Structure formats: C-alpha cells, structure tokens
C-alpha cells in the first residue's frame, strides 16, 4: 500500500515537472515570436494569400491523422503497460484484416482529397500563369548577380539594384534569370519563390493588395555574399508609383546603365546598397541570357553586343 502511494507520488512529480518544462518552452517561444513579422502567414498579396490558405488547409487535413495517432499512441502504451496486469494479453494476435483495411483506407481517402486539391491549386497558382486583372500589368526583368539583384523595368526604361517599387492591386510580371550561380527569388509576403538560373528565364506573377515595404531574398546558396542577396519590395499607390517611375526616367542626374556599368555591376561585390539607373538598352535582359548560349566559357565571351553604349 505504501509502495503504491510512493509510486503515485513519483508519478505526480513527473507530470508536474514535465508540464513545467512544457510551459517554459512554450512561454519562451511565444516571447521570442510575439510581435515579429510572419510574412508567410500574414501575407499581403493575392498569390501569397491563396498559398497561405492552402498551407492552412493541408495542415488541417494532416491533423485529422496526426491527432488520432497521438491519442492512440499514448492510450495504447499506457493501457498495455506491463505493470497493468488487468489488461488483456494476446501474444499470438498477428494482425486484423478489418483494422488494417481502415488504416490503408483512411489515408488513401485523405490523399485522394489532397491529390485533387494539389492538381487544382498547382494549376491555379502556377507561377507562370498571368493574373487576371483589368489593370495593365507592370513588367519587371530580374537578374541575380554576385551578390545583388538587378531589376529592369523595360517599359519604364529604368533599372534598380536591391529594391523594387511596385503599384498595389496591379499584376506584376517577373521574368527571372541569373548572371551568377543559381539563386531563388522569394518575397514571402507576396508570393512563393522561383529559381533564377543563368541561360534560362523563369516567370513569376504576383500582386500586392496592400501598400508597405516587404522583404525579399535569395533562397539558394550562391557563394560568399549569399546572405547579402536581400532586397526590398515597396508596394505603393498607383499614383506614387507612376510619379516615381516618371521622375526617375526624366531626372538628368540618374546614373546610366550601359555596357560598362553593367559589367561592373555583374562583378563580384559585397556592396548591397540600393541603386537606381536609367536603362540604356532595352535588350539587356535577353543579352544576359543569350551570352550563356554562346560556345566556350561564358566568363570570357562576356558581353560584346552592339548598341549598348549609347
């Protein structure tokens, strides 16, 4: 009798200690998380909103399996502990067709559902799919360099380094390449990422539905200055955006993006400051891609296209 009392006391002690540990962990985690930006969940764009909904939905569906697993694991383990001699013991039980059919069947059903969701959402959220809108989209060509981002606005005739201004509620059509090792362009508040690869052009469509300044970065290691591959996305009102674009294009003291200044930008550099340029060659983006199509070493062949040095 006393022994049992002692054991119970021990058990209570265990429960108290482990709950305390759990409370401390959760408390600390809450403390270091509270008030921080969580762009994937607190999304600010049309695409990111839908991606967040998808994440929440799959999480919920997963929980349908996870919660029963946890409950079963601990109840079975507790009920059939060796010291509980009252529990039934059937050492020869080797399976049960009906039970097994249940846990082949239920996951199959969930995966079927999830599979349908996958097909539908993958097509709906295909990053290559233009966003339906009555507003004229803004085109931005992106080039990842060592180690900064070059953004070209071909229609506005301007280019920026490490930041972009975009109008809100306007579809943005990115085409993305690299003049460096592979990078991945990710603006978590607005849309998921896509690779930036040399000699290739990928696409990403997104639309901000709020104004604000959002973080973007490279998600794929690209060498020494990889951690500096950060940029800002400033979503602003249509009018602000238009005046910014017009002012930049018309200002006389804006630096020119020429053949020479591009070559300098493309060189390895840890300078991650934001810069603004006047675009001198509408075809720059294509030339950057095409130089990897040339035979021989891409580094040597460089850029010897004409019409760059206006």
């Amino acid at each position: 009798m006393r022994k049992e009392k002692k054991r119970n006391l021990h058990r209570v002690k265990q429960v108290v200690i482990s709950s305390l540990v759990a409370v401390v962990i959760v408390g600390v985690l809450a403390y270091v998380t509270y008030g921080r930006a969580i762009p994937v969940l607190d999304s600010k764009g049309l695409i990111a909103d839908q991606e967040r909904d998808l994440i929440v939905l799959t999480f919920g569906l997963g929980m349908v399996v996870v919660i029963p697993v946890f409950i079963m694991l601990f109840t079975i383990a507790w009920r059939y502990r060796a010291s509980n001699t009252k529990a039934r013991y059937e050492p020869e039980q080797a399976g049960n067709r009906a039970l097994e059919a249940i846990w082949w069947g239920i996951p199959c059903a969930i995966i079927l559902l999830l599979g349908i969701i996958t097909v539908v959402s993958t097509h709906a959220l295909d990053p290559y799919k233009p966003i339906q809108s009555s507003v004229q989209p803004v085109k931005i060509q992106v080039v990842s360099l060592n180690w900064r981002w070059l953004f070209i606005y071909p229609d506005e005739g301007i280019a920026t380094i490490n930041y972009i201004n975009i109008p809100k509620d306007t579809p943005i059509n990115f085409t993305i390449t690299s003049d460096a090792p592979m990078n991945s362009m990710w603006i978590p508040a607005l849309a998921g990422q896509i690779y930036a690869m040399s000699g290739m052009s990928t696409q990403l469509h997104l639309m901000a539905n709020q104004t604000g300044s959002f973080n973007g970065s490279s998600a794929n290691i690209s060498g020494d200055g990889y951690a500096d591959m950060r940029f800002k996305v400033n979503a602003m009102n249509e009018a602000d955006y238009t005046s910014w674009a017009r002012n930049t294009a018309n200002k006389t003291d804006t630096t020119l993006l020429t053949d020479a200044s591009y070559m300098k930008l493309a060189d390895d550099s840890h300078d991650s400051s934001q810069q603004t340029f006047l675009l001198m060659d509408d075809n720059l983006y294509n030339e950057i891609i095409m130089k990897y199509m040339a035979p021989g070493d891409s580094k040597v062949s460089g850029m010897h296209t004409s019409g760059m040095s206006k």
Partner: protein
Amino acid sequence: MFQSILDFVFGRLRLSDFVHDPLMAGAGYAMAGALILALIGLTVFKKWGWLWKNWLTTVDPKKIGIMYLLVSLVMLLRGLADTLLLRAQQANDNIAGTLLTADHFQQIFSAHGTIMIFFVAMGIIFGLFNLIVPAQIGARDVAFPFLNSVSFWLFFAGMILINAPLVVGEFSNAGWLAYPPLSELQYSPGVGVDYWIWSLQIAGIGSLLSGINFFITIIKMRAPGMKMMMMPIFVWSAFCATLLIMFAFPILTATLGMLSLDRLMGMHFFTSGAGGNPMMYVNLIWAWGHPEVYILVLPAFGIFSEVVSTFSKKKLFGYTSMVVALIAITILSFTVWLHHFFTMGAGADVNSFFGIMTMVIAIPTGVKVFNWMFTMYRGRVTFTTPMLWFMGFVVTFTIGGLTGVMMSVPSADFQFHNSLFLVAHFHNMIIGGVVFGAFAGFSYWFPKFTGFKLNERLGVYAFWCWIVGFLVAFVPLYILGFMGAVRRLDHYDSSIGWQGLFIVAGVGVMIICVGVFFQLLQVGYSIWKRKENRVGNDPWGGRTLEWSIASPPPEYNFAVIPTVTSRDQFWEDKKKEHTSVFKPIYEDILIPKNTGLGFIIGLFALTFGFAIIWHMWWLVIVGLLGVIITLIIRLTSDDTDYVMTAAAVAKHELKRGTV
C-alpha cells in the same frame, strides 16, 4: 626548373595550404593530435599486433560492424561540433564575421550535411547490417567477406578525406549537394569541391559494394526453411535498402564522375555556358538523393518493428502489411525526386504529379505507424530505453510527416522551399527517424555483441535530453521558416527580429549535447560496471534467431545452422517446453582467413583521392595501380579460408557452456 619539379611532385599543394584560421586549425590539430596520441598509446602498450590481427585485417562482419559504429560515433561528434558553431554564429549578434567568416560558415554547413548523411547515418546503417543481418537469417557470415572488408576501408578512406581539409586545404562551400554552377570551376576553383567529390566517390563505391554484398547475403544465405515471408522485418528492411542502394548509388557515382570531368578536364556537363545544364545535375543528384533518404530510414523502420514486438511480448501486427509497405516505399521512392525543386519552373502538370506521388508515400508509411501501435495493443509493454526511443520516434516522425505532406503541395512548397521550415522538416525525419532508430537499435542489440547491458538510468536521461533538445532546437526553425528566414545565412538583418528564435534553437542544440554526453557516459559506465550487468543469450525475451546464440556470438555465429519453420523462430522454440535432448551434431566450419588486403586497398584509395584532389598526377597513378594490383593479388590467391574442425567447434561450445 625547381618550380616545375615542385609542381610535378606536389601538384597544387603548397605549404600555405596548411595554414588555417585558429578555430579550424584547433579542430584539425585536435583531431590529428588525438590520432597521434592513439598511435603512441598503441606503441607504448604494445597493441599494434592486437590492432592488426583483431581489427584491421578482420573479415568478420561482427567486428567490421563495430568499426563502422565507432567511425560513425566519432563523425557524429564532429557533425555535432559543426552544429554548435553554426548555431553560435546565427545566435550571435549576427554581424558578419564576428565569429565565422561567410566562407568558413559555408564550409561548416557543407561539411555538417555531408558528414551526417554519409559518415554517420550510412555508417550506422552498415554497422547494424553487419552486426545483425547474418545473425538474424541464421548465417555464419556475409556472402563476400573480403568485399565487406574492402567496403569498410573505402568508407574509412572517404571519412579521412572529408576530414583532411581541417588540416590541409579547404572544404567545399557549395552545400551538401554542391549544386552547379556554384560547384563548377568558374565559381569554385579551389580544392574544396574536389574534397567533397572524391570523399563521396570513394565512400560511395564502398556503399554500393556493401549494398550488393548484403543483398546477395539475404537472397542466398538464409537458414534452411526461412522463406522470404519468414524473414525478420529488419532483414526485410535491409533487403529493400540494399535494393535501393544498388539502383541509386550508380547514379551518384555517374553524377559525381561528370562533375569531376567538368572540373578536371574542362568539360561542360553541368556548366552554365557552352551547352552544359546545371539543372541536369540537380535532377540526377536527387534521383539518387531521394532514395538515399529511404536507404537510411527503412532500416530504422526495421529496427522499430523488432523493438516494439519484443518489448510488447507480442507478434508484430500485420507482418504482411509491413512487408507490402516496405516494398511500396522502395518503389515509390524513385518517383518523387522532383519535389526537391518544384521551384525550378516546371509546368503545373509535372509539379502536380510529383506532389501527388510524394503524398502517396505517406500512405504506406502511415500504415506502418498504425501497425506498430497495434503491436502494443493487447501486449505487455515494458518501457526500456529502446522502447522510449520508439515512442519519441512516433511523435517526432509524425510531426515530420505532417510538415512533409504540407510541403508536398507544390504551390505551398514555393513558400517553404529552402527556408528553415524545410531544414526543420528534414531534421525531423532524419533525427526522429534514422538517429532515434539507430539509438534504439544500439541499446537493443548492445548486449548481444558485448555480453552486458547498457545502464538504463543514463539511457533514460539521454533520451529525455534528446527529445526536449530536439523540440527546442527545431520548433524555432519551423517558425523562422514562416518568418521568411532562408537556410544557410551566415548573417541577417538584425532589425528583422529573428535573433531570439535562433538563440532558443542554439539552447536546444546544447540540450542535445547534454544528451550525447549522457550517452557517452552511459557506454563508459556500462563498460566499467560490465561484470554486474552480464547477460546471457537472451536478455530481452527476444523473438528472432540472433538471440539464440551466445552474447557475444562466436566467430561462426551458429555452431549448428538452425532450421526455420516459422516467423519468430526463436520465440516459437522457447515456447516448446521440452527442448530437444539430442546432442547437437557439429560439422567442420569453413571460416575466411583474416587479410590485410582490404585495409591496403583502402590506403591506396585514400592516396588516389588525395592525389587527384591536389593534382599530383604521378601519385594518382600509384594509387590506382595499387588498388588494381592488390585486387589481383587477392583474386589469384586460393588460400583464403581455414577449416574449424567439428571437434574444435564442440570444444568451443563446451567452453561457452552452451551444451
């Protein structure tokens, strides 16, 4: 003139390559110092002969298995030390270069990933195969004992190569899979990527040979009567894993081969210009890489199946389901590789296909979890340390499975790819699955191979430190992923508010380190107190054949090869009240002789690897010829076995008191 001789002899190796920053030099010299101390110790205690005769030249899978585990343990400590540095850097005040430079930081995470997968997880898996598979199928040895020794020494050579940069040169900073074009000459001209390539290439060939060896062993050397559907489930998992090795590792060899041709001979398989296609590499490396994940985790599934059945004192629930699930996972694992790069820009149909295939894998995996739980149902469960690892495994692995399914939806993956969410997910699977499985297997089979049990109390402490540390280390990473933190950042914007979470993650790693400390203490203490913990053949009430033989088993495992008539053969044998009163009839046993040739092949392979990394072409030829000639010597030798007579076996058995 002098310069050209120097170039010829030393390739691109220069004295300055031995100069490192203090931190790295410290690690390097500590390792080299430990090695020198060990060598001095061997000399002082006159143990060279013992080392050579009992270990270096052995072809006994049980000893080779122990050597695999020892190497893995040392590498686990190295990988853990790397983790501490990575975590310290990110928890630091995150100003670039305060602790580690970007270059150094990148070398460390590249080494961490490579070492943990190739030299810890793979080492543990092969160690356990060596120790357990022959004993579980009632065999005396593996199919090709010499090949087994070659495999181990190639693995060992790879291990030396990957640690060599601590002393000479630098390691790759292109991540654990070295995606081109970053890993090409244009962006990584140094020796780092070459170290990565050749240490994996050499260890990888060892793995492939081992895979073939154990596949044949399982196919051909099962005890009479043991049909495939009577094999212990761990053997089934080993069978599936070796099948995966045989299909997947040639892809790795070919891929690394092409990358090295690019780097050595200026070819253009994966360069970004001149017709090369880096994305081809990414496809190929994952066509190996995804099955590799299952090569590691299937044996862990096997271990848990044995553990849960033994400690529930009950048959495994749904044996056939378990086998079907294993085979399904084996096949499906080759159909999902693209989910590692949904973000490459493939069309929606392609992405959907690979997303759905990935989810489908969750079905057989989930079935296994339910079957394990129902093995406990109506059982008599004792919560020994192996069982605690099992419980911890189900919890962490289920969480990891959930996050895995979340990432398998391509459009959602665009938000998770290469973020710390992903990092948390795969550590969830590999630590919760493979590492916990290895620990469960280690404490479960430890008495079999030493003759004494591990201390339970210290094992329990270790378990709780690991599971709590694990959660504290990785839950912050999941949250950081949602915050947009990508992996492999040596510094970040301090205004962004990630530092607190990184500090918590660092604390988690330290709790894990305490767990590892308890484990080392546990092994040390148990060896010290071994006389008190001595056990017989069958300390746990085992079910499979390995528990029917002595602990530790004799060199020949089974004096008389058992005849198998049912699944849990040993369990069924024990149930029969009147054990056979017949005197066992012994016969002559053919035992392979020890040979140093496997070790020598490893040495030559190491020479070859080192030479080709540093472009010492004459030494490359020496290494290669050395391997070939040693092999020819072995293959033309007939004197490879000796006979242990029936009388000697009888004497041996009598001495052990088994009769």
